């Protein structure tokens, strides 16, 4: 059995690795929730890297329909072709274009399929995929063919909890909630990203970061990715380490809302 134990540039907690391995063993989709910036999307990439499988990403938008993930029948192209006498119009399969899910199903080797931000789509969207994710097959009406997987893909689904997902869908998933990393874990993550970095810089930056996160009034709390960006900015600028906690330079990297920046400035005074 394939086992996921994290990868070089991704620090996974033990619980998370456990969840991934359970999902792989039970051949069920893994649903990942968590604060923005806790590495939900990165997870799929790191699983793909660790198990050396190709990664197929299906990014969901508010207008995405389930059908698009399976296949699209390009009627307009076929109509054009018939009018201008181009190509073999009788061969419908030429006008069937597989979506991301279709791609994952027909792949020659096992792939990791990431369905990113499933909650962005319509409320009914997850329900429309129940059968396909359960059976890992779908039927193309136009060509009367069934597309079936040869190698069941490892399906990772992420959600930001903008919408509640339907129960029937949830029942079929393995669920894991990524907690915001503790300071200890955060140091590990920083180490993975920056290698050897000035310890003092990290200490000061972490202190400022967790102080800001601890302020109740902050509307949009800075996340891991923002901390990493900030560290990068601090490192490049070569700013005096002792000034970090007092001045919080480049605060715009950490906080994205004017009110939040004002709030932190008010605290500093």
């Amino acid at each position, binding site marked *: 059995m394939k086992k996921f134990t994290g990868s070089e540039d991704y620090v996974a907690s033990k619980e998370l690795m*456990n969840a991934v391995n359970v999902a792989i*063993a*039970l051949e069920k989709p893994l649903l990942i929730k968590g604060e923005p910036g806790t590495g939900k999307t990165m997870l799929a990439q790191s699983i793909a890297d660790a198990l050396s499988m190709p990664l197929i990403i299906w990014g969901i938008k508010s207008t995405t329909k389930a059908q698009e993930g399976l296949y699209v029948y390009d009627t307009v192209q076929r109509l054009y072709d018939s009018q201008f006498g181009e190509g073999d119009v009788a061969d419908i399969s030429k006008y069937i274009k597989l979506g991301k899910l279709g791609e994952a199903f027909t792949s020659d080797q096992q792939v990791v399929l990431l369905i990113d931000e499933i909650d962005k789509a319509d409320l009914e969207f997850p329900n429309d995929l129940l059968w396909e994710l359960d059976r890992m097959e779908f039927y193309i009406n136009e060509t009367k063919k069934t597309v079936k997987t040869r190698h069941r893909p490892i399906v990772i689904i992420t959600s930001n909890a903008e919408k509640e997902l339907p*129960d029937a869908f949830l*029942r079929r998933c393995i*669920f894991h909630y990524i907690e915001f990393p503790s300071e200890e874990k955060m140091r590990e993550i920083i180490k993975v990203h920056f290698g050897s970095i000035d310890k003092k810089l990290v200490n000061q930056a972490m202190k400022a970061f967790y102080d800001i996160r601890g302020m109740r*009034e902050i509307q949009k709390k800075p996340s891991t990715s923002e901390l990493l960006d900030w560290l990068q900015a601090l490192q490049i600028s070569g700013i005096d380490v002792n000034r970090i906690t007092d001045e919080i330079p480049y605060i715009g990297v950490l906080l994205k809302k004017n009110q939040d920046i004002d709030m932190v400035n008010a605290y500093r005074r």
Partner: protein
Amino acid sequence: MFIDFFYLLRAQGLEISLDEWLCLMEALDKGLAANSLMEFYYLCRNILVKTESDYDKFDMAFAKYFEGIESVDDIPEELWKWLSEGEQERELEDMPAWAQEHNLDELRRMFKERLEEQNEKHDGGNYWVGTGGTSPMGHGGYNPAGVRVGGYSRHKSAIQIAAERNFRDFRQDNELDIRQFQMAFRKLRQFSARVDNAKTELDIDRTIDATCENAGMLKLVYEKPRKNTVKLLLLMDSDGSMTRYSQICSQLFQAVNQSSHLKDLKTYFFHNCIYDYLYTTPECNDGQWVKTDWVLGNLDSSYKVIIVGDAAMSSYELTARGGNINWYTFNEDPGLIWLERLKRHYKKSIWLNPIKAERWRMTWGSRTIAMVSGVFPMFELTLDGLDAGIKKLLNN
């Protein structure tokens, strides 16, 4: 089979289906939790719990089923002291093989017996209840199947983690952030096409019918777009005893103001109770107000009303003439009369109270809370409470 665990989880309010339970059984058959209770804990949670807001319920059920942590309240105080002093760290490797072999029932029985035998403090041993040892009872030591007694955990076991209830904050009946408020307010909709509006939306079904009737020549049919008809009047208590809830109230206020789908939104403020005047600013300065009668006259009864306040005050503020705490605005009618007047005019109205419902009967002001909730249906200001309140507002 531990099917009773299944029923315990369901009794805790986790809606676990048989499918999921069988899935867990399959996972256990595959040996996915063969190594430790910890793995078993995570496996159960991964498969059975599908939202982080239920993690807490799960933790409680887990701790209850594998109990031994929270039920040791009857330990003598002396023992607690022994356990909190003189802690020592020890290597994990020197754990004796027998340490794993206890089951919890046995352990608890042993624990009771040993407590009866023991009459002094022990640290670092392997038999007595103490700290830092490999005895299955005590704390700060290492025994994966052991019972922790007080102190803090050094090597966490699954039961301990469950008992810590780290996910308490995610419970849905807890406080909420502004986005969750917004999501809740989205439910405050009543669609109607009977609004005075231009016909701007294409009605496809009727277009097809009309075109067919027209012998295939295209004929377009338009209809009025459906609009949300909900009008909301928000009345907020904004002073004194409400200060401690200001954070959550301001979140609610912002969420309502950002709910662009409402047909109309009016907001006024008051001190403790509503009398002759409603203030237009949260500072409640004299003069910056409108007459409550004006509101009753100008905002018709189709407005839905949400009143936010703790309803905790001295009872004379509700029952007496001149009970208004603002000295300069003497009220002829007692506050309760005003509240009833509002309720009679606005049939669809609710009261949201930031005080938790379970404390309504004991907290300071419980008398006035009872009086106010006799007039308005009262809900606590949490996500669940708001949901229930909005349902009430939309009911016919």
